[in-house]
């Protein structure tokens, strides 16, 4: 089945230690998104790739970076995680930034910072 896969599902890192979360998709969608979701809150968009074009949200901290080496894979790099970065990180895809913007989410990676 076509899907969005995130690895790992759970990640523990130390304060200040760089961490990378990965996302892959078999939907062949042009757009990939990274969201941060804290407990009982709505997902907050960090950035997205439209094909190879990177689009950063204005309030996304510089500590967060992303790479998309090919259509199928996208990575979220947190250069120096702080305690406030503990959250669920969701990857999503959409076919293109059309009017309906239906997005398909992965299961998420829960990040713990110790």
């Amino acid at each position, binding site marked *: 089945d076509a899907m969005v896969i995130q690895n790992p599902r759970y990640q523990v890192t130390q304060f200040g230690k760089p961490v990378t979360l990965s996302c892959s998709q078999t939907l062949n969608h042009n757009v990939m998104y990274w969201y941060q979701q804290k407990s009982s809150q*709505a997902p907050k968009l960090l950035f*997205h790739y439209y094909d190879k074009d990177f689009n950063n949200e204005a309030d996304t901290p510089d500590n967060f970076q992303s790479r998309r080496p090919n259509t199928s894979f996208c990575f979220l790099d947190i250069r120096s995680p702080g305690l406030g970065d503990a959250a669920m990180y969701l990857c999503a895809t959409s076919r293109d*930034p059309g009017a309906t*913007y*239906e*997005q*398909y989410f992965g*299961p*998420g990676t829960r990040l713990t910072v110790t």
Partner: protein
Amino acid sequence: TQLLEQSPQFLSIQEGENLTVYCNSSSVFSSLQWYRQEPGEGPVLLVTVVTGGEVKKLKRLTFQFGDARKDSSLHITAAQTGDTGLYLCAGVLNAGNMLTFGGGTRLMVKP
């Protein structure tokens, strides 16, 4: 203040009851989506509505888009414990804009 306001924020009901969740805005959306998110999982798309006044049904779930495309509702008939989760509405203001999420409604259906 969020662009999309969902109400109620929390809802706890008994199995078999009916419920309605609301998603309201002062802005006009070109489309609106509803997602359900279970604990520890990503949101799952339930429905997309694009036409003012549109009504869509998904088994016991009925979704309505307001005539002015500023609001939407989700009605669940005879709720089941499997309906438990976080319900998120999300809208697109104009083509090319990002999806804007509401704050969510956390539903608990007790047996």
